[in-house]
């Protein structure tokens, strides 16, 4: 919401600037004004969306069942808590242990055996996560480790954030908890590990996107 408002506000200034000078529409077909109009329209649409649902939303179970019927490949069901969306994502690529899952709108999550490694297309993406706690989590062990999460800052550079994490069993049997702190914030990832694979989890993407819950529908 904040981001959406910023976008509109910023847009207002750009319209002003676009008017003064020569927006050198380099190669693309929509000019500065067109691009801004589009952006504003999208923002407006995004705001209206929750108020006027087009069709009665399918329940998460219905969506999962339908996806399993239609798509023969590996599937996960994810819930973006901050965005308030639950979606089914299908695997679109595999490179060794790394799997890329996408929504129909081509937003992506990248997982390594269920561990969140990156996101794409969400606006505040996690570029890459380097959890040195991964082995502990998979083994169901206890201990400490560091976790580096890389993000884009607004100036266009990839910047690392380091967190100190401790791993241990949670209050519920079978759940491993990774508690991390650093840079004035803290978060807690929960994993359900089965045979070294993370079958169900709730993991922190970053300061803006918050947590995502990931459930394996078909491994």
């Amino acid at each position, binding site marked *: 919401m904040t981001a*959406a408002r910023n976008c509109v506000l910023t847009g207002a200034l750009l*319209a*002003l600037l676009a008017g003064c000078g020569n927006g050198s529409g380099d190669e693309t077909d929509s000019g500065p004004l067109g691009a801004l109009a589009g952006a504003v329209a999208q923002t407006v649409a995004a705001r209206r969306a929750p108020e006027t649902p087009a069709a009665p939303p399918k329940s998460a179970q219905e969506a999962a069942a339908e996806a399993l019927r239609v798509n023969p490949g590996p599937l996960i069901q994810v819930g973006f808590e901050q965005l308030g969306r639950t979606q089914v994502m299908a695997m679109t690529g595999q490179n060794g242990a790394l799997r890329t899952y996408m929504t129909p709108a081509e937003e992506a999550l990248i997982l390594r055996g269920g561990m969140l490694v990156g996101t794409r297309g969400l*606006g*505040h993406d996690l570029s890459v996560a380097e959890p040195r706690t991964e082995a502990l989590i998979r083994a169901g062990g206890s201990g400490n480790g560091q976790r580096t999460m890389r993000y884009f800052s607004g100036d*266009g550079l990839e*910047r690392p954030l380091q967190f100190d994490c401790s791993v241990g069993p949670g209050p519920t049997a079978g759940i491993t908890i990774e508690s991390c702190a650093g840079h004035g914030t803290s978060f807690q990832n929960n994993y359900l590990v089965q045979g070294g694979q993370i079958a169900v989890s709730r993991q922190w993407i*970053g*300061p803006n996107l918050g947590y995502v819950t990931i459930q394996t529908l078909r491994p």
Partner: protein
Amino acid sequence: MRRSLLTRRLLATTLPAALVMGSVSSTAVADPMLARNLSSFGLPGGIDTPTAETLADGTLGASLSWSDYARRSNVLFQALPDLSVVLRYSRVEGINDFRGEGYISDRSLDLHYQLLDEQGWRPAVAVGLRDFLGTGVYSGEYIVATRNVTPAIRVSAGLGWGTLAGKPRTIDVADEGGTPNVDDWFTGGANPFGSVSWQVNDRLSLVAEYSNDTYLARYSNGREFQQGDAEPGSNLNLGAYYRLGRNYELGLYTIGGETFGAQFSLALNPREAPYPSGLEKAPAPVRPRPAPAADPDGWSGSWSQDPTAQPAIQKALGDAMAEEGQILEAMALSANRAEVRIRNQRYVNQAEAVGRTARLMSRALPPSVETLVITSTADGVPTSSVTLRRSDLERLENTEAGQIAAASLLSDAPAYAEGMVRSPGIYPRFRWNIRPYLDLGVFSAEDGLTHEVGAQARASYEIVPGLVLTGALRQRVFGNIDQRGPGIGLPGTRGQYYTPEEYLADPALETTPQGVPRVRSDTRMYTGNSSPTIPELTLAWYAKPTETVYTRVTAGLLERAYGGVSAEALWKPANSPLALGIEVNRVRKRDFDSLLDFRDYEVTTGHVSAYYEFAQGFTAQLDVGQYLAGDRGATVTLTREFANGWRIGAFATKTDLSAEEFGEGSFDKGISLSIPIGWATGQPTRDRAGTTLRSLSRDGGARLEVQDRLYDRVRESHSVRLYDGWGRFWR
């Protein structure tokens, strides 16, 4: 050399937390003391007085302040973490000049430098120069200290000179302004000033200040004016500022208790993008090769003997690249090496185009191809090549971007590469669009806000790579930017203009009384046409005679006011921060109807240029040569740019015209801004919004505005820009 550049540019990203965490409130990093509000002069301050605060590095701000004393439009740029610069356009009320309109228009420039940031018991300390180019209505200097007393209350105290001491200096009526009067600085007696600000809550802050400004203007011809209606009733000013969202602020204030004012300001921080990582669709992932046993033909390379292989692969790759906003212009393919020439039409950072192309190549090429060469092009001409090993691409997917950078090689791209096959159906290439346009004149205190609205059609026809025919047609619909002759420019006629009829009737008027040809000061003669105009109609040819030399020849109607031939050559190795260029133009002045006719004035103008890319996004440019009016001199341009594509620059030109010949302002100077639209919307696009703010449109130091000069086009894919944006390789 290359490695150290790399390390500097992308591995040393260690100032990170606050930038990414942004909204997480309790970042325990020692933030610099950031301003709560802008003063009526557009700088961190109280109401009229300055404070020792700064804005976040790189912030671009604008503010409008109205009161009975003045209407001020300020543009602020935090050029360095501790240096703020303000360009101000004011309508100063109560002063009568030759026009007798009861106000004057005034332009001024301020510098504000924070010497020390607050630390422990030590307050932040700043020093500043207000209206320091020549002696102006607002000229004064200060040194000020600011300290947080409680988290909510901040106190500033300082010493001011000039207007800030209530002792305005005498303004020399004969001075054209524009040059600093260093001898006057910090002289004439100082007086203390101070302010207290109380941050009531997240949005509201209240300010009280003690100011010495008497709002008096004294001129060397003995005349003296009280600005506004009267001297402030007391030294005490009060103000309230209310923040709207993250970027906007509204303020109400009183000067001395009797005069009231209002203020609106906004501040944009290039580091605070609404969608820092962009909203573009996720890239297609790398497809690792199958085991050799699973595809023995593909691994053996025998497929390369099949003449149908390359066309099929090139078609598939070209289609996939088109989906991601890029054109596969040509491809050379052998059993173990593939080179592609790409034209990036979508991404601000060339690294993102290169990274996406590399991944698509991993999906399209048979397994025996191990060496991937991705050659970027600009205007149909190859500019640089990135060479990667396919096994590195497979191994390093989803790792930090610096790793693939270290495993890749950037080199100059040859003009001709062996075996390069052009993709069919791409040339000739015809593009067109029709769009509304809006011209706004914001910063003219005399004219107020001016505008013109209309429609423009633009088409380009690229016959072969590098040979482009471009034309535009514009129709004004409505607006108040009317045709007007230039200022008369004789003593005692300041602010008076010729009518278009007077100006057209007497060709002798096309030279100023000081003998300078009117090359830009009659620019308003080109406006207000109610019939269609042709802003440009050119044939351009781009080429590359050697690996590191680029050329451009453009002929036709080059810009609104000039037509002719423009030729340019640029030496720019891909890994060099230094570039050298030369440009020669023979142009003739176009007729005021902006169609196909010309006027009599003809001139040869051209420059020798040196460009250098410093660290931290600063670039410098020096142009030496002959300008449009035949005057000779040099232009210095200093630009700051961010990896996300923001560019903010300042330039100054001094030629052999005397200050009297040049007129008000003494020499040409200005600020240019360019902001990628994608930064604001998150959508991937190379569109930009930009403008150039000049102090005045004058005839001295004027340059031809030819489109698509080589430097900015070529360097997009060269080391500094490419590696600055390399973080987007895996996007």
